[in-house]
């Protein structure tokens, strides 16, 4: 099999590129003294990513978005759940092998420095993956230089440099080039611009949007910055304490958010207008501990709309618009929310 081309589309355009089913990751902690406890980092995720779309995942730190990305990249093994890539079950007999899956799914991390080998020149770093997958050395080197060009770093000038000789933005370009080296179909971007200065952030975001067109890519874009997600994503998934709070097209999430948590996140953004400053924090406190999440709806402890039903019953992911779902009792007429009493604060 040649690996200079992207693997062809097998399932057709209607087949989602990635299907995540019931993904769960519990990290065991505790000792013989404290007893067994688990951190419910990811607690039941179901979603799909269509071909050539960008799915954005947002949420506060500790909500499980990075764990989710590592599960999807199969850097860690899930407690439960399965991943289907273009119709093939990942890592199962009759499905797609892990090695082949990892060729087609690549990742870019937040910390551009620690994700590059400090002893390899950037050309060697980019060529490393293709060599592992059987590309001859000369060809892998050529492709590395082509990719450096594609990410806006002149190969003659940069190919022989080491990571410490580059700025943060340049290193992140190298990481993107490396992710592209195996001609993947899905790229997981885990906070790719969070560590960059604003002027460089804009450069890298423009680059990512260009490369997506040029190489026909699908992105899973994880960020805590809602403005960035609004700019790049087609659909947005809002996570809270390991679960989906809301999922829908970007315009619905940003224009007609159904979940009170999403609305609070949106309202927490600085206003960018010094004459109209925020006067009330949209949310108080921090997210609860994922070791012992609240009963019922996990957001109820910080939610202004919480009623008794929210503590008793966990909301499902209700359809509130075309392709737009929210996990909130208040969005449903027949959920019993209307008859329920307010929770004592």
């Amino acid at each position, binding site marked *: 099999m040649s690996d200079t081309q992207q693997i062809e589309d097998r399932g057709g355009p209607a087949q989602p590129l990635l299907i995540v089913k019931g993904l769960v990751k519990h990290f065991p902690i505790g000792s013989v003294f404290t007893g067994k406890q688990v951190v419910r980092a990811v607690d039941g995720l179901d979603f799909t990513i269509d071909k050539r779309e960008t799915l954005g995942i947002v949420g*506060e*730190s500790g909500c499980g978005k990075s764990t989710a990305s590592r599960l999807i990249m199969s850097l860690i093994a899930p407690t439960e759940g399965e991943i289907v890539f273009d119709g093939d079950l990942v890592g199962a007999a009759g499905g797609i092998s892990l090695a082949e899956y990892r060729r087609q799914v690549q990742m870019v991390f937040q910390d551009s420095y620690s994700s590059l080998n400090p002893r390899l020149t950037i050309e060697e770093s980019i060529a490393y993956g293709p060599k592992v997958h059987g590309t001859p050395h000369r060809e892998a080197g050529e492709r590395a230089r082509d990719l450096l*060009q*594609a*990410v*806006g*770093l*002149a190969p003659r000038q940069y190919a022989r440099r080491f990571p410490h000789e580059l*700025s*943060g*933005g*340049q290193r992140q*370009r190298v990481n993107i080039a490396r992710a592209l080296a195996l001609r993947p179909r899905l790229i997981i971007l885990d906070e790719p611009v969070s560590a960059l*200065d*604003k*002027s*460089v*952030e*804009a*450069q890298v*975001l*423009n*680059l990512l*949007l*260009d490369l997506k067109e040029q190489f026909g890519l699908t992105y899973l874009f994880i960020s*805590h*910055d*809602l*403005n*960035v997600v*609004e*700019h790049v994503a087609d659909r947005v998934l809002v996570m809270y304490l390991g679960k989906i709070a809301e999922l829908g097209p*970007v315009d619905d999430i*940003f224009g007609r958010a159904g979940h009170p948590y999403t609305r*609070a*996140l949106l309202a*927490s*953004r*600085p*206003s*960018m*207008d*010094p*004459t109209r*400053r*925020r*006067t*009330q*924090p*949209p*949310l*108080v*406190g*921090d997210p609860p501990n994922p070791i012992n999440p609240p009963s019922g709806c996990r957001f109820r402890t910080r939610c202004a709309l919480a009623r008794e039903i929210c503590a008793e019953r966990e909301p499902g992911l209700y359809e509130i618009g075309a392709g737009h779902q929210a996990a909130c009792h208040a969005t449903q007429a027949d959920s019993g929310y209307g008859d329920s009493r307010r929770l004592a604060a």
Partner: protein
Amino acid sequence: MTAPAPLVRARDLHVSFVSRDATVKAVNGVDLDLDAGEVLCILGESGSGKSVTLRALMRLNPPNKAVVSGELSVAGHDMVTISDRQLSSVRGKVVSMIFQEPMTALDPVYTIGRQIGETLVRHEGIGRREAEQRALELLELVQIPSAKRRLQAYPHELSGGLRQRAMIAMAISCRPQLLLADEPTTALDATVQIQILLLLRQLQQELGMGVIFVTHDLGVAGEIADRIAVMYAGRMVEAGSTVDVMRGPLHPYAKGLLGATVHSGLRGTRLTTIPGSPPDLRHPIEGCAFAPRCPHALETCSAGVPEFRPMQAGRAVRCFRSEEIAGATTRPPSRTTPQGVLLP
């Protein structure tokens, strides 16, 4: 303090870091005035010298490496020549600081209550027990829930937001006249960031402190500042009221920064960017430091360093061409090529 003198006054402040291999000129002539009860935001990217300037105000730059020159006074104390003994009575009492990463700024082996109390015992000469009581009041002032229990907590037992609140409590414990804040919300989630900003704003008004707030985030500056000063390569390039700077930046760098900040309503468009990257301060810079990245740069821009010229009321800008640029209907800063920018 005597009334007319500003709380902070800096004239031609220089800070450079000397090591065997290189001399980094981090701050290259900063003039700064801050009145009592005023909130100034210093805005800039990494390496712009904003944090070094802030640290100079408390003399926190490492004494064996940092060379400070120029004039710098805080509430009448000369921070360039101050003795170590005087310094320790000024720090905490007159000027105090909150940092970006509360986990490393707090001492992990002492409880929160003990750490806050320590400042009070040192500066106000009160006993341990009384200090503990005051610490409790301070924790309540910064809105830490179940403050009594939190007094006995160690830093690792608190969440990031609570730790930052505890650090604010410590910083304001002796009612300083000047509070310095070095990106105090950068490590926090957006929902917690806005809580901390609102808290700082409230405390600033209640206690009447002057605040210098360093950030790289224009949105944060818009939420808290009275005035904004934009720094680039160790110099102020623009200063003015928050509304003026955010509505109509004059310096091409400030303009670029505003254009490059992702906000609503830009979807489907290419972001305007500032091509290239900031200069390396290990090497001397000829002329305007921003000229290599500036869409309006002429050859003359590299000839000399532009002055920091006052414009309209309360505004100043360091650009040779600011009148022409402001006068013309400004075209947006250059857009990148589809392939991104070939960096110099």
